[in-house]
């Protein structure tokens, strides 16, 4: 066992997959000599060579398009977006070309597009995005968003082995802030499409993912301490395919549910989850489904503003109390 960071877990996962399978290669901006803007690929060029660690021009559409082409030919490209915010430049090729390739033309496109996502880091409107919802809507793309060190490793490995295109949202706030002991030598795989019970409880369910899992756990601790209530926290881990069953199981136990995500409210994924719960478990609800999300604005830079716009642990506490009192 060795204690590693979330970032190191991602490194290890990619490294192991590159060792295991020579079809795996990396491409992206500044990932080679520089090791990536966040150093996720530090040392890869030296170990795997320029043929498998490809520095590219600033061309997100070409990066994703080329990854798709190489994948059709049997390779397994892992493309880095320097910040996930720049994935918007590849939106067309991801949603129209990549997502439909199998459906319309039977083409295998096993690519991973990964990158640092999320706020709470004073990154301003263009280095803090969590654009899951932009791709959630397009059939054909799998979406993964690990919250823990273990899942960062287990999911990046699973994503690389997956035969479908996967967008992999790493949370940059977690990169160096969380640590965990990981077993050495073990082939750690977190299955795509399975949620995790991050905390057991019976009074209220909170469904969440990525960095919000930690804010929610903090809130759950506070609620236990101060109010004596027991909150169950479901970490979705993958958004597509979504483990709706895990959500329903928890709800049938608690009968109260809150969905918490970092993204803006309108059109955020919480809406879809709420709709599904309402459809599939209406009779199990003792209170309305409520959402804790960011406000509907671009994400501002100043700490006072960012903290206000983004959801905080205290918001989960407040919302939970409201639900429990309903």
């Amino acid at each position, binding site marked *: 066992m060795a204690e590693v960071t979330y970032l190191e877990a991602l490194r290890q996962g990619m490294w192991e997959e590159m060792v295991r399978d020579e079809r795996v290669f990396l491409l992206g901006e500044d990932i080679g000599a520089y090791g990536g803007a966040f150093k996720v690929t530090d040392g890869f060029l030296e170990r795997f060579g320029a043929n498998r660690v490809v520095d590219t021009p600033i061309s997100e559409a070409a990066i994703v*398009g080329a990854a798709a082409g190489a994948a059709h030919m049997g390779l397994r490209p892992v493309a880095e977006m320097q910040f996930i915010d720049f994935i918007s430049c590849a939106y067309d090729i991801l949603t129209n*070309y990549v997502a*439909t390739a199998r459906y319309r033309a039977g083409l295998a496109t096993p690519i991973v597009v990964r990158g640092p996502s999320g706020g709470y880091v004073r990154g301003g409107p263009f280095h803090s995005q969590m654009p899951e919802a932009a791709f959630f809507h397009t059939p054909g793309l799998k979406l993964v968003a690990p919250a823990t060190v273990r899942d960062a490793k287990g999911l990046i490995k699973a994503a690389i082995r997956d035969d479908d295109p996967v967008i992999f949202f790493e949370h940059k706030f977690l990169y160096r802030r969380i640590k965990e002991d990981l077993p050495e030598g073990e082939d750690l795989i977190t299955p795509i499409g399975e949620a995790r019970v991050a905390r057991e409880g019976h009074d209220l369910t909170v469904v969440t993912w990525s960095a919000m899992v930690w804010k929610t756990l903090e809130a759950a601790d506070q609620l236990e301490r101060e109010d004596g209530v027991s909150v169950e926290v479901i970490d979705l881990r993958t958004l597509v395919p979504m483990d709706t069953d895990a959500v329903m199981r928890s709800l049938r136990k608690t009968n109260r549910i809150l969905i918490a995500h970092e993204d803006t409210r309108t059109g955020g994924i919480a809406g879809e989850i709420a709709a599904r719960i309402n459809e599939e478990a209406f009779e199990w609800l003792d209170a309305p489904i409520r959402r804790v999300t960011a406000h509907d604005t671009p994400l501002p830079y100043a700490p006072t503003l960012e903290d206000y716009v983004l959801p905080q642990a205290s918001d989960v506490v407040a919302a939970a109390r409201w639900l429990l009192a309903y």
Partner: protein
Amino acid sequence: MTLAAGAPPIPAGLTHDDLRRIYYYLRLTRALETRLTNLYRQGKVIGGLYSSLGQEGESVASAFALERRDILSPLIRNLGSMLVKGARPVDVLRQYMAKAASPTAGREMNIHFNDLNLGYLGQISHLGDMVPVMAGIALSFRMRGEDRVGLVYVGDGATSTGTFHEGVNFAAVMRVPLVVMVEHNGYAYSTPTRRQAAVERLADKALAYGIPGITVDGNDVLAVYEVTKSAVERARSGGGVSLIEAVTYRRRGHAQHDDQRYQSPEEVARWETNDPVDRYLQRVTGAGWIGETDVAEIDAQVEVELDAAVADCEREPLPEPETALTGVFVRPATAPALWFRGLDG
């Protein structure tokens, strides 16, 4: 068959048989599009119909310059290239008529389909997007040390897209084995080329990428073949990307429904006298490389083949509705049928 007495040597290392095959594909392309036009008029084509009339030459000749293991990515007017690569007329008909047995099982239209074993990749409608994808295919050839080349077609109009630029630049920097064929056919839908780009020669686009750019008469089949062949060889031998501008003309409208009001009748007429198939025939029969009987035989063979293809296709059913749900992902293999479909309407 021996060389006709006194005939000049065939250029570019082509054989008599090659010349006959080229003619076959030219004729097949044109005849298949004629069939499609008839079917369209009979209301049997489901969506729009696009014609490559007047451009068959560059499609066929450029694809002919590839080896079987090479991969090309056609656009809507590159039916000829796909046929050269082995696409079957019956599959083209099935696509246009959305039959269950079509290569895309009725999901995609017209020549949007692929067979990577035969060596063609299916396009999507979004212009320019195939360039980065082909850059990636060519990158995979280079990475694995495979002796293969990619060829990607783009229209004059598509050169304005961001993905064209990103893809060509990416390929050029990586020196992947790719040939970019810019089909300068005068128009993008109704837009004349001078409103698409402020250059005289689209080959000059190459200068921005540090790659060779060459302009060729797109209606001169043998010239297109030669130019493409040398770009392909350059790519194959590690020389990286080339860009070819094939100057040609779109004699029909953008699609069947287009009234071509923006093309002057004189202009169209002028290009009719510069037809690539006619020119090719004159050249190869004039030089004595192919005889009149060869031509007649091929013409007849094409019609027989198309009769069979049309007959086969017309009999076939449309896809079963529920098949629409499979194949969005590898896993899960089937999307769920929505709840209301199980109910009693």
